Protein backbone atom coordinates (compact mmCIF):
# COMPACT_ATOMS: atom_id res chain seq x y z
CA UNK A 1 0.00 0.00 0.00
CA UNK A 2 2.80 2.36 0.83
CA UNK A 3 4.34 1.56 -2.55
CA UNK A 4 1.12 2.43 -4.33
CA UNK A 5 0.91 5.72 -2.41
CA UNK A 6 4.50 6.58 -3.28
CA UNK A 7 3.96 5.67 -6.94
CA UNK A 8 0.85 7.80 -7.33
CA UNK A 9 2.50 10.72 -5.55
CA UNK A 10 5.59 10.51 -7.75
CA UNK A 11 3.42 10.31 -10.86
CA UNK A 12 1.56 13.40 -9.74
CA UNK A 13 4.84 15.21 -9.10
CA UNK A 14 6.32 14.25 -12.46
CA UNK A 15 3.20 15.29 -14.37
CA UNK A 16 3.30 18.61 -12.56
CA UNK A 17 6.77 19.18 -13.97
CA UNK A 18 5.85 17.86 -17.41
CA UNK A 19 2.67 19.95 -17.66
CA UNK A 20 4.38 23.09 -19.01
CA UNK A 21 6.13 20.98 -21.65
CA UNK A 22 2.89 19.50 -22.92
CA UNK A 23 1.98 22.55 -24.95
CA UNK A 24 -0.57 21.35 -27.42
CA UNK A 25 -0.85 24.38 -29.63
CA UNK A 26 1.26 27.03 -31.25
CA UNK A 27 2.21 30.06 -29.24
CA UNK A 28 4.01 33.35 -29.77
CA UNK A 29 7.33 31.78 -28.85
CA UNK A 30 6.77 28.66 -30.94
CA UNK A 31 4.69 29.53 -33.97
CA UNK A 32 4.77 26.16 -35.76
CA UNK A 33 1.45 24.36 -35.55
CA UNK A 34 1.26 21.21 -33.50
CA UNK A 35 -2.12 19.50 -33.77
CA UNK A 36 -3.63 19.22 -37.20
CA UNK A 37 -7.07 17.89 -38.03
CA UNK A 38 -7.24 16.02 -41.33
CA UNK A 39 -10.72 15.67 -42.84
CA UNK A 40 -11.09 12.96 -45.44
CA UNK A 41 -14.13 11.92 -47.40
CA UNK A 42 -12.73 8.44 -47.81
CA UNK A 43 -10.46 6.71 -45.31
CA UNK A 44 -8.52 5.11 -48.15
CA UNK A 45 -6.89 8.53 -48.61
CA UNK A 46 -4.82 7.71 -45.56
CA UNK A 47 -3.01 5.06 -47.54
CA UNK A 48 -3.16 6.61 -51.00
CA UNK A 49 -1.57 9.80 -49.67
CA UNK A 50 0.58 8.12 -47.05
CA UNK A 51 3.88 9.70 -48.10
CA UNK A 52 2.54 13.22 -47.59
CA UNK A 53 1.08 12.39 -44.19
CA UNK A 54 4.18 10.56 -43.04
CA UNK A 55 6.43 13.50 -43.93
CA UNK A 56 4.14 15.67 -41.83
CA UNK A 57 4.30 13.25 -38.93
CA UNK A 58 8.07 13.00 -39.18
CA UNK A 59 8.28 16.77 -38.72
CA UNK A 60 6.44 16.51 -35.45
CA UNK A 61 2.86 17.22 -36.40
CA UNK A 62 0.14 15.49 -34.51
CA UNK A 63 -2.34 14.40 -37.21
CA UNK A 64 -5.90 13.55 -36.31
CA UNK A 65 -7.67 11.73 -39.16
CA UNK A 66 -11.43 11.98 -39.30
CA UNK A 67 -14.10 11.40 -41.87
CA UNK A 68 -15.64 14.62 -43.10
CA UNK A 69 -19.14 13.58 -42.08
CA UNK A 70 -18.13 12.31 -38.67
CA UNK A 71 -20.87 13.50 -36.32
CA UNK A 72 -18.45 14.22 -33.50
CA UNK A 73 -16.37 16.74 -35.43
CA UNK A 74 -15.51 19.87 -33.51
CA UNK A 75 -12.83 22.51 -33.85
CA UNK A 76 -13.44 24.09 -30.51
CA UNK A 77 -14.33 22.88 -27.08
CA UNK A 78 -15.38 25.28 -24.34
CA UNK A 79 -14.07 28.21 -26.37
CA UNK A 80 -10.56 26.78 -26.89
CA UNK A 81 -9.44 25.58 -30.26
CA UNK A 82 -8.43 21.94 -30.31
CA UNK A 83 -6.31 22.17 -33.44
CA UNK A 84 -3.79 24.60 -34.93
CA UNK A 85 -4.17 23.49 -38.51
CA UNK A 86 -6.80 21.96 -40.71
CA UNK A 87 -6.33 19.87 -43.81
CA UNK A 88 -9.50 19.32 -45.83
CA UNK A 89 -8.95 16.52 -48.37
CA UNK A 90 -12.70 16.02 -48.89
CA UNK A 91 -13.57 17.48 -52.26
CA UNK A 92 -16.93 15.77 -52.66
CA UNK A 93 -18.36 16.37 -49.19
CA UNK A 94 -21.58 18.36 -49.28
CA UNK A 95 -21.90 18.86 -45.57
CA UNK A 96 -19.52 18.39 -42.69
CA UNK A 97 -20.62 16.43 -39.70
CA UNK A 98 -20.67 17.59 -36.13
CA UNK A 99 -20.11 21.23 -35.38
CA UNK A 100 -18.25 22.05 -38.57
CA UNK A 101 -19.51 24.25 -41.36
CA UNK A 102 -18.04 26.90 -43.63
CA UNK A 103 -18.60 29.61 -41.01
CA UNK A 104 -16.75 27.71 -38.30
CA UNK A 105 -13.90 27.13 -40.73
CA UNK A 106 -13.83 30.83 -41.60
CA UNK A 107 -13.66 31.60 -37.86
CA UNK A 108 -10.86 29.07 -37.57
CA UNK A 109 -8.78 30.99 -40.11
CA UNK A 110 -9.79 34.29 -38.50
CA UNK A 111 -8.30 33.09 -35.25
CA UNK A 112 -4.91 32.85 -36.94
CA UNK A 113 -4.93 29.13 -37.69
CA UNK A 114 -3.88 27.55 -40.96
CA UNK A 115 -5.73 25.57 -43.60
CA UNK A 116 -4.93 23.33 -46.54
CA UNK A 117 -7.96 22.88 -48.81
CA UNK A 118 -8.03 20.73 -51.86
CA UNK A 119 -10.57 20.14 -54.58
CA UNK A 120 -10.19 17.40 -57.17
CA UNK A 121 -11.88 16.51 -60.42
CA UNK A 122 -15.06 17.62 -58.73
CA UNK A 123 -15.61 20.14 -56.00
CA UNK A 124 -18.73 20.35 -53.92
CA UNK A 125 -20.46 23.65 -53.23
CA UNK A 126 -19.25 23.48 -49.66
CA UNK A 127 -15.61 23.36 -50.73
CA UNK A 128 -16.21 26.10 -53.29
CA UNK A 129 -17.79 28.24 -50.58
CA UNK A 130 -14.85 27.85 -48.24
CA UNK A 131 -12.46 28.69 -51.06
CA UNK A 132 -14.52 31.76 -51.93
CA UNK A 133 -14.17 33.00 -48.35
CA UNK A 134 -10.42 32.86 -48.86
CA UNK A 135 -10.54 34.80 -52.12
CA UNK A 136 -10.30 31.86 -54.53
CA UNK A 137 -12.86 31.31 -57.28
CA UNK A 138 -13.22 27.77 -58.60
CA UNK A 139 -14.61 27.32 -62.10
CA UNK A 140 -18.39 27.44 -61.98
CA UNK A 141 -18.76 24.50 -64.30
CA UNK A 142 -18.69 21.50 -62.01
CA UNK A 143 -17.65 19.10 -64.72
CA UNK A 144 -14.76 21.21 -66.00
CA UNK A 145 -11.13 20.22 -65.51
CA UNK A 146 -7.91 21.83 -66.53
CA UNK A 147 -6.87 20.73 -70.00
CA UNK A 148 -3.62 21.65 -71.63
CA UNK A 149 -2.72 20.37 -75.06
CA UNK A 150 0.88 21.44 -74.93
CA UNK A 151 1.90 21.14 -71.29
CA UNK A 152 0.54 17.75 -70.43
CA UNK A 153 2.45 14.80 -69.09
CA UNK A 154 3.32 12.26 -71.76
CA UNK A 155 2.20 9.36 -69.59
CA UNK A 156 -1.41 10.48 -69.85
CA UNK A 157 -3.72 10.10 -72.82
CA UNK A 158 -6.36 12.78 -72.54
CA UNK A 159 -4.21 15.83 -71.72
CA UNK A 160 -5.77 16.37 -68.31
CA UNK A 161 -2.63 15.41 -66.40
CA UNK A 162 -0.81 18.70 -66.52
CA UNK A 163 2.95 18.99 -66.07
CA UNK A 164 3.20 22.45 -64.61
CA UNK A 165 6.43 24.30 -63.97
CA UNK A 166 5.24 27.89 -63.63
CA UNK A 167 6.03 28.23 -59.96
CA UNK A 168 6.10 31.44 -57.97
CA UNK A 169 9.63 32.72 -57.40
CA UNK A 170 9.81 32.73 -53.65
CA UNK A 171 12.38 30.94 -51.52
CA UNK A 172 10.21 31.39 -48.49
CA UNK A 173 7.20 29.59 -49.89
CA UNK A 174 8.90 26.92 -51.96
CA UNK A 175 12.25 26.49 -50.25
CA UNK A 176 15.75 27.34 -51.35
CA UNK A 177 16.23 24.30 -53.57
CA UNK A 178 14.78 24.82 -56.99
CA UNK A 179 12.13 22.30 -57.97
CA UNK A 180 13.59 20.87 -61.16
CA UNK A 181 10.91 18.46 -62.29
CA UNK A 182 7.48 19.71 -63.30
CA UNK A 183 4.63 19.25 -60.87
CA UNK A 184 1.89 16.86 -61.96
CA UNK A 185 -1.65 18.13 -61.58
CA UNK A 186 -5.06 16.79 -62.48
CA UNK A 187 -8.05 18.70 -61.24
CA UNK A 188 -10.13 21.84 -61.46
CA UNK A 189 -9.10 25.36 -62.26
CA UNK A 190 -9.52 28.38 -60.11
CA UNK A 191 -8.83 32.04 -60.54
CA UNK A 192 -7.94 34.86 -58.22
CA UNK A 193 -9.34 38.34 -58.09
CA UNK A 194 -6.50 40.59 -59.32
CA UNK A 195 -7.35 43.33 -56.84
CA UNK A 196 -7.02 40.99 -53.88
CA UNK A 197 -3.49 41.46 -52.56
CA UNK A 198 -3.68 38.71 -49.96
CA UNK A 199 -3.85 35.78 -52.43
CA UNK A 200 -1.06 34.59 -54.61
CA UNK A 201 -0.65 32.03 -57.38
CA UNK A 202 1.93 29.46 -56.39
CA UNK A 203 1.48 27.12 -59.35
CA UNK A 204 0.01 28.69 -62.47
CA UNK A 205 -1.15 27.01 -65.61
CA UNK A 206 0.69 27.58 -68.84
CA UNK A 207 -0.74 30.06 -71.37
CA UNK A 208 -2.16 27.18 -73.42
CA UNK A 209 -4.32 25.76 -70.62
CA UNK A 210 -8.07 26.10 -70.36
CA UNK A 211 -10.83 24.83 -68.15
CA UNK A 212 -13.49 22.68 -69.86
CA UNK A 213 -15.26 19.35 -69.65
CA UNK A 214 -12.84 16.82 -71.17
CA UNK A 215 -15.51 14.38 -72.25
CA UNK A 216 -17.77 16.69 -74.21
CA UNK A 217 -17.19 18.91 -77.17
CA UNK A 218 -16.69 22.59 -76.51
CA UNK A 219 -19.73 24.60 -77.56
CA UNK A 220 -18.34 28.01 -76.66
CA UNK A 221 -14.91 29.36 -75.82
CA UNK A 222 -13.95 28.50 -72.25
CA UNK A 223 -14.13 31.23 -69.64
CA UNK A 224 -10.96 30.43 -67.76
CA UNK A 225 -7.89 30.25 -69.95
CA UNK A 226 -4.18 30.60 -69.88
CA UNK A 227 -2.15 31.88 -66.98
CA UNK A 228 -5.25 33.35 -65.38
CA UNK A 229 -5.85 29.80 -64.26
CA UNK A 230 -4.24 29.07 -60.97
CA UNK A 231 -3.59 25.45 -60.06
CA UNK A 232 -2.40 26.00 -56.49
CA UNK A 233 -2.84 29.29 -54.63
CA UNK A 234 -1.99 30.54 -51.19
CA UNK A 235 -3.50 33.24 -49.06
CA UNK A 236 -1.90 34.96 -46.11
CA UNK A 237 -4.57 36.73 -44.10
CA UNK A 238 -3.96 40.00 -42.34
CA UNK A 239 -3.65 38.12 -39.07
CA UNK A 240 -0.92 36.01 -40.72
CA UNK A 241 -3.02 32.85 -40.96
CA UNK A 242 -1.96 30.89 -44.03
CA UNK A 243 -4.22 29.00 -46.42
CA UNK A 244 -3.23 26.73 -49.32
CA UNK A 245 -5.92 25.97 -51.90
CA UNK A 246 -5.21 23.33 -54.50
CA UNK A 247 -7.34 22.31 -57.43
CA UNK A 248 -6.05 18.75 -57.38
CA UNK A 249 -6.07 16.21 -54.55
CA UNK A 250 -4.08 13.84 -56.72
CA UNK A 251 -1.20 16.29 -56.55
CA UNK A 252 -0.64 15.10 -52.97
CA UNK A 253 -1.07 11.39 -53.76
CA UNK A 254 1.66 8.76 -53.51
CA UNK A 255 1.15 7.79 -57.14
CA UNK A 256 2.01 11.22 -58.46
CA UNK A 257 4.75 11.67 -55.85
CA UNK A 258 6.52 8.58 -57.21
CA UNK A 259 5.79 8.86 -60.90
CA UNK A 260 8.25 10.12 -63.47
CA UNK A 261 7.49 13.12 -65.62
CA UNK A 262 8.12 14.04 -69.18
CA UNK A 263 6.45 17.17 -70.40
CA UNK A 264 5.12 17.02 -73.92
CA UNK A 265 7.41 18.77 -76.32
CA UNK A 266 10.36 18.78 -73.93
CA UNK A 267 13.24 16.30 -74.16
CA UNK A 268 13.84 16.25 -70.38
CA UNK A 269 12.65 13.14 -68.66
CA UNK A 270 12.58 13.22 -64.86
CA UNK A 271 12.60 10.08 -62.74
CA UNK A 272 10.53 11.71 -60.06
CA UNK A 273 8.03 14.48 -60.36
CA UNK A 274 8.39 17.65 -58.38
CA UNK A 275 5.20 16.88 -56.46
CA UNK A 276 6.76 15.60 -53.26
CA UNK A 277 9.19 18.48 -52.95
CA UNK A 278 6.46 20.96 -53.85
CA UNK A 279 3.95 19.58 -51.34
CA UNK A 280 6.52 19.27 -48.56
CA UNK A 281 7.90 22.78 -48.96
CA UNK A 282 4.42 24.24 -49.21
CA UNK A 283 3.33 22.43 -46.04
CA UNK A 284 6.39 23.83 -44.25
CA UNK A 285 5.35 27.33 -45.23
CA UNK A 286 1.66 26.99 -44.45
CA UNK A 287 2.25 25.58 -40.98
CA UNK A 288 4.62 28.41 -40.07
CA UNK A 289 7.87 26.48 -40.11
CA UNK A 290 9.29 29.09 -42.43
CA UNK A 291 8.80 32.76 -43.13
CA UNK A 292 7.49 33.71 -39.72
CA UNK A 293 8.96 36.92 -38.35
CA UNK A 294 8.92 38.35 -34.87
CA UNK A 295 9.96 41.85 -33.93
CA UNK A 296 11.46 43.05 -30.69
CA UNK A 297 10.73 46.51 -29.42
CA UNK A 298 11.67 49.63 -31.36
CA UNK A 299 14.54 51.44 -29.68
CA UNK A 300 15.41 55.05 -30.42
CA UNK A 301 17.60 57.63 -28.74
CA UNK A 302 19.65 60.71 -29.50
CA UNK A 303 23.12 60.20 -30.94
CA UNK A 304 25.48 59.89 -28.01
CA UNK A 305 22.85 58.96 -25.48
CA UNK A 306 21.39 55.60 -24.50
CA UNK A 307 18.08 56.48 -22.88
CA UNK A 308 14.98 57.01 -24.88
CA UNK A 309 13.92 60.66 -24.56
CA UNK A 310 10.31 61.62 -23.93
CA UNK A 311 10.42 64.29 -26.63
CA UNK A 312 12.70 65.23 -29.49
CA UNK A 313 13.57 68.71 -30.73
CA UNK A 314 13.54 69.58 -34.43
CA UNK A 315 16.87 68.97 -36.16
CA UNK A 316 18.03 66.53 -33.49
CA UNK A 317 20.21 63.62 -34.60
CA UNK A 318 18.73 60.35 -33.57
CA UNK A 319 19.46 56.64 -33.89
CA UNK A 320 16.81 54.00 -34.37
CA UNK A 321 17.06 50.25 -34.09
CA UNK A 322 14.76 47.23 -34.03
CA UNK A 323 15.40 43.53 -33.60
CA UNK A 324 13.75 41.12 -36.04
CA UNK A 325 13.95 37.38 -35.69
CA UNK A 326 12.88 34.65 -38.06
CA UNK A 327 11.54 31.29 -36.96
CA UNK A 328 13.56 28.44 -38.41
CA UNK A 329 11.12 25.72 -37.48
CA UNK A 330 12.90 24.99 -34.22
CA UNK A 331 14.38 28.23 -32.95
CA UNK A 332 14.45 31.96 -33.50
CA UNK A 333 17.23 32.96 -35.85
CA UNK A 334 18.30 36.49 -36.75
CA UNK A 335 16.50 37.75 -39.80
CA UNK A 336 18.73 39.00 -42.59
CA UNK A 337 17.33 41.32 -45.22
CA UNK A 338 18.27 44.60 -46.83
CA UNK A 339 14.83 45.94 -47.62
CA UNK A 340 13.44 46.79 -44.22
CA UNK A 341 12.45 50.43 -43.94
CA UNK A 342 11.45 52.76 -41.16
CA UNK A 343 9.26 55.81 -41.60
CA UNK A 344 9.17 58.89 -39.43
CA UNK A 345 5.51 59.48 -39.97
CA UNK A 346 2.97 62.20 -39.21
CA UNK A 347 0.08 61.84 -41.67
CA UNK A 348 2.72 61.12 -44.29
CA UNK A 349 6.31 59.93 -43.97
CA UNK A 350 8.72 62.81 -43.52
CA UNK A 351 11.70 60.48 -43.38
CA UNK A 352 11.91 57.05 -45.05
CA UNK A 353 15.13 55.18 -44.48
CA UNK A 354 16.28 51.68 -45.31
CA UNK A 355 17.59 49.91 -42.26
CA UNK A 356 21.03 48.35 -42.31
CA UNK A 357 21.61 45.12 -40.45
CA UNK A 358 24.49 43.67 -38.48
CA UNK A 359 23.30 40.21 -39.59
CA UNK A 360 22.61 39.30 -35.96
CA UNK A 361 19.00 40.40 -36.07
CA UNK A 362 19.50 44.08 -35.22
CA UNK A 363 18.44 46.63 -37.81
CA UNK A 364 19.50 50.22 -37.30
CA UNK A 365 19.72 53.60 -38.94
CA UNK A 366 20.21 57.22 -37.96
CA UNK A 367 18.76 60.41 -39.32
CA UNK A 368 18.00 64.02 -38.50
CA UNK A 369 14.59 64.89 -37.12
CA UNK A 370 12.82 67.00 -39.78
CA UNK A 371 12.17 70.70 -39.36
CA UNK A 372 8.51 70.13 -38.48
CA UNK A 373 7.09 69.84 -35.00
CA UNK A 374 4.18 67.65 -33.97
CA UNK A 375 3.51 64.12 -32.83
CA UNK A 376 5.36 61.62 -35.01
CA UNK A 377 5.50 57.83 -35.14
CA UNK A 378 8.32 55.51 -35.96
CA UNK A 379 6.63 53.07 -38.31
CA UNK A 380 7.93 49.81 -39.70
CA UNK A 381 5.53 48.33 -42.23
CA UNK A 382 7.00 45.25 -43.82
CA UNK A 383 5.02 43.11 -46.25
CA UNK A 384 7.37 40.83 -48.07
CA UNK A 385 6.03 38.02 -50.24
CA UNK A 386 5.64 34.89 -48.16
CA UNK A 387 6.66 36.44 -44.85
CA UNK A 388 4.38 37.45 -42.02
CA UNK A 389 3.51 41.13 -42.13
CA UNK A 390 5.21 43.36 -39.62
CA UNK A 391 3.33 46.45 -38.54
CA UNK A 392 5.18 48.22 -35.74
CA UNK A 393 4.85 51.76 -34.54
CA UNK A 394 6.02 53.91 -31.68
CA UNK A 395 4.83 57.42 -30.99
CA UNK A 396 7.15 60.32 -30.11
CA UNK A 397 6.50 64.06 -29.99
CA UNK A 398 8.83 66.64 -31.56
CA UNK A 399 9.05 70.17 -30.24
CA UNK A 400 10.39 73.36 -31.84
CA UNK A 401 13.39 75.29 -30.52
CA UNK A 402 13.15 76.81 -27.08
CA UNK A 403 13.77 80.55 -27.04
CA UNK A 404 17.32 80.10 -25.87
CA UNK A 405 18.19 77.36 -28.40
CA UNK A 406 18.47 79.68 -31.36
CA UNK A 407 21.88 80.85 -32.56
CA UNK A 408 23.07 83.60 -30.33
CA UNK A 409 24.67 85.83 -32.95
CA UNK A 410 23.39 85.89 -36.51
CA UNK A 411 26.28 86.22 -38.96
CA UNK A 412 24.27 88.33 -41.43
CA UNK A 413 23.80 90.91 -38.72
CA UNK A 414 27.48 91.45 -37.92
CA UNK A 415 27.58 94.86 -39.70
CA UNK A 416 24.71 96.04 -37.51
CA UNK A 417 26.49 94.83 -34.38
CA UNK A 418 29.59 96.59 -35.65
CA UNK A 419 27.63 99.80 -36.29
CA UNK A 420 26.32 99.79 -32.74
CA UNK A 421 29.77 99.36 -31.28
CA UNK A 422 31.28 102.07 -33.46
CA UNK A 423 28.46 104.40 -32.47
CA UNK A 424 29.26 103.70 -28.82
CA UNK A 425 32.98 104.24 -29.41
CA UNK A 426 32.23 107.34 -31.44
CA UNK A 427 30.09 108.79 -28.68
CA UNK A 428 32.80 108.05 -26.12
CA UNK A 429 35.47 109.74 -28.21
CA UNK A 430 33.14 112.66 -29.01
CA UNK A 431 32.33 113.29 -25.39
CA UNK A 432 36.05 113.39 -24.50
CA UNK A 433 36.84 115.69 -27.39
CA UNK A 434 33.90 117.95 -26.75
CA UNK A 435 34.48 118.31 -23.05
CA UNK A 436 38.22 118.77 -23.12
CA UNK A 437 38.92 120.64 -26.32
CA UNK A 438 40.47 124.08 -26.07
Amino acid sequence: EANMMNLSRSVALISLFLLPLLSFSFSVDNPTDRRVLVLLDDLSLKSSHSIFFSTLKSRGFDLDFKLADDSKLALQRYGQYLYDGLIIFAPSTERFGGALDSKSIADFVDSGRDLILSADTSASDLIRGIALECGVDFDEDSSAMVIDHSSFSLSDGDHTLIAADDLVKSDVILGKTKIEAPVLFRGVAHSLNPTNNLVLKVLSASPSAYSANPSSKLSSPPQLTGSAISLVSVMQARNNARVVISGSLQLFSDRLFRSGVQKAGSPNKYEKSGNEQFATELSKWVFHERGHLKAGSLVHHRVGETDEPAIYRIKDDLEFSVEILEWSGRSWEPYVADDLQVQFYMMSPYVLKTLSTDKKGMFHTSFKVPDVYGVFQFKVEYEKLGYTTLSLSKQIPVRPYRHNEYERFIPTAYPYYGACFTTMAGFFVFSFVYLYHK
Partner: protein
Amino acid sequence: MVKSTSKDAQDLFRSLHSAYSATPTNLKIIDMYVVFAVFTALIQVAYMALVGSFPFNSFLSGVLSCVGTAVLAVCLRIQVNKENKEFKGLGFAGEFDSRQYALVLLGLVHRDCELGMGINWSLFPTANTIN
Protein backbone atom coordinates in the same frame (compact mmCIF):
# COMPACT_ATOMS: atom_id res chain seq x y z
CA MET B 1 24.17 131.39 -69.12
CA VAL B 2 25.83 128.15 -68.17
CA LYS B 3 28.95 129.88 -67.20
CA SER B 4 27.12 132.23 -64.95
CA THR B 5 25.27 129.42 -63.15
CA SER B 6 28.45 127.54 -62.50
CA LYS B 7 30.07 130.72 -61.28
CA ASP B 8 27.02 131.28 -59.10
CA ALA B 9 27.37 127.78 -57.69
CA GLN B 10 31.02 128.32 -56.99
CA ASP B 11 30.27 131.65 -55.32
CA LEU B 12 27.55 130.04 -53.26
CA PHE B 13 29.82 127.22 -52.17
CA ARG B 14 32.59 129.65 -51.23
CA SER B 15 30.28 131.83 -49.21
CA LEU B 16 28.87 128.81 -47.38
CA HIS B 17 32.35 127.58 -46.67
CA SER B 18 33.52 130.87 -45.28
CA ALA B 19 30.38 131.27 -43.18
CA TYR B 20 30.78 127.81 -41.78
CA SER B 21 34.43 128.35 -40.87
CA ALA B 22 33.26 131.10 -38.55
CA THR B 23 31.28 128.74 -36.33
CA PRO B 24 32.81 127.91 -32.97
CA THR B 25 34.92 124.75 -32.65
CA ASN B 26 32.63 122.98 -30.21
CA LEU B 27 29.77 123.22 -32.66
CA LYS B 28 32.02 121.86 -35.38
CA ILE B 29 32.87 118.91 -33.20
CA ILE B 30 29.17 118.19 -32.74
CA ASP B 31 28.64 118.53 -36.48
CA MET B 32 31.37 116.00 -37.17
CA TYR B 33 29.77 113.56 -34.78
CA VAL B 34 26.39 114.02 -36.43
CA VAL B 35 27.89 113.38 -39.86
CA PHE B 36 29.63 110.27 -38.54
CA ALA B 37 26.38 108.94 -37.05
CA VAL B 38 24.31 109.59 -40.17
CA PHE B 39 27.04 108.09 -42.33
CA THR B 40 27.02 104.91 -40.24
CA ALA B 41 23.24 104.76 -40.60
CA LEU B 42 23.48 105.16 -44.37
CA ILE B 43 26.05 102.36 -44.61
CA GLN B 44 23.63 100.06 -42.80
CA VAL B 45 20.79 100.96 -45.12
CA ALA B 46 23.00 100.22 -48.13
CA TYR B 47 23.97 96.85 -46.60
CA MET B 48 20.34 95.98 -46.02
CA ALA B 49 19.56 96.85 -49.62
CA LEU B 50 22.23 94.34 -50.66
CA VAL B 51 21.52 91.30 -48.48
CA GLY B 52 17.87 91.77 -47.64
CA SER B 53 16.16 92.63 -44.43
CA PHE B 54 16.98 89.53 -42.37
CA PRO B 55 17.37 89.99 -39.41
CA PHE B 56 15.17 93.04 -39.49
CA ASN B 57 15.37 93.73 -35.81
CA SER B 58 19.16 93.96 -35.95
CA PHE B 59 18.88 96.37 -38.85
CA LEU B 60 16.42 98.52 -37.00
CA SER B 61 18.52 98.58 -33.87
CA GLY B 62 21.63 99.56 -35.80
CA VAL B 63 20.00 102.29 -37.83
CA LEU B 64 17.84 103.70 -35.09
CA SER B 65 20.72 103.86 -32.60
CA CYS B 66 22.76 105.83 -35.14
CA VAL B 67 19.88 108.09 -36.03
CA GLY B 68 18.96 108.52 -32.39
CA THR B 69 22.42 109.55 -31.39
CA ALA B 70 22.52 111.97 -34.32
CA VAL B 71 19.23 113.52 -33.22
CA LEU B 72 20.42 113.88 -29.65
CA ALA B 73 23.66 115.44 -30.86
CA VAL B 74 21.64 117.95 -32.85
CA CYS B 75 19.61 118.74 -29.74
CA LEU B 76 22.85 119.35 -27.87
CA ARG B 77 24.07 121.64 -30.64
CA ILE B 78 20.87 123.66 -30.52
CA GLN B 79 21.11 124.05 -26.77
CA VAL B 80 24.80 124.87 -26.75
CA ASN B 81 24.71 127.31 -29.65
CA LYS B 82 25.22 130.78 -28.15
CA GLU B 83 23.21 132.41 -30.91
CA ASN B 84 20.02 130.75 -29.67
CA LYS B 85 18.52 133.14 -27.18
CA GLU B 86 15.99 130.94 -25.52
CA PHE B 87 18.39 128.44 -24.00
CA LYS B 88 20.00 130.44 -21.29
CA GLY B 89 20.66 129.59 -17.73
CA LEU B 90 20.78 125.86 -18.01
CA GLY B 91 24.49 125.87 -17.70
CA PHE B 92 26.98 123.86 -19.65
CA ALA B 93 26.87 120.75 -17.49
CA GLY B 94 23.02 120.47 -17.51
CA GLU B 95 22.62 119.94 -21.23
CA PHE B 96 25.39 117.44 -21.41
CA ASP B 97 24.19 115.42 -18.44
CA SER B 98 20.66 115.18 -19.80
CA ARG B 99 22.05 114.15 -23.14
CA GLN B 100 24.19 111.49 -21.55
CA TYR B 101 21.19 110.09 -19.70
CA ALA B 102 19.21 109.98 -22.93
CA LEU B 103 22.09 108.24 -24.67
CA VAL B 104 22.37 105.58 -21.96
CA LEU B 105 18.68 104.77 -22.40
CA LEU B 106 19.14 104.69 -26.16
CA GLY B 107 22.08 102.32 -25.82
CA LEU B 108 20.08 99.96 -23.61
CA VAL B 109 17.15 99.76 -25.99
CA HIS B 110 19.45 99.36 -28.93
CA ARG B 111 21.39 96.55 -27.35
CA ASP B 112 18.10 94.76 -26.73
CA CYS B 113 17.30 94.91 -30.39
CA GLU B 114 20.65 93.89 -31.74
CA LEU B 115 21.54 91.04 -29.41
CA GLY B 116 18.51 89.00 -30.19
CA MET B 117 15.50 90.40 -28.61
CA GLY B 118 16.62 90.20 -24.95
CA ILE B 119 13.65 91.09 -22.77
CA ASN B 120 11.25 90.68 -25.66
CA TRP B 121 12.20 87.02 -26.14
CA SER B 122 10.43 85.68 -23.15
CA LEU B 123 7.32 87.75 -23.79
CA PHE B 124 6.63 86.77 -27.39
CA PRO B 125 8.55 85.35 -30.32
CA THR B 126 9.35 87.89 -32.97
CA ALA B 127 9.47 87.11 -36.64
CA ASN B 128 13.11 86.09 -36.48
CA THR B 129 12.47 83.19 -34.10
CA ILE B 130 10.55 81.23 -36.72
CA ASN B 131 12.99 79.69 -39.18
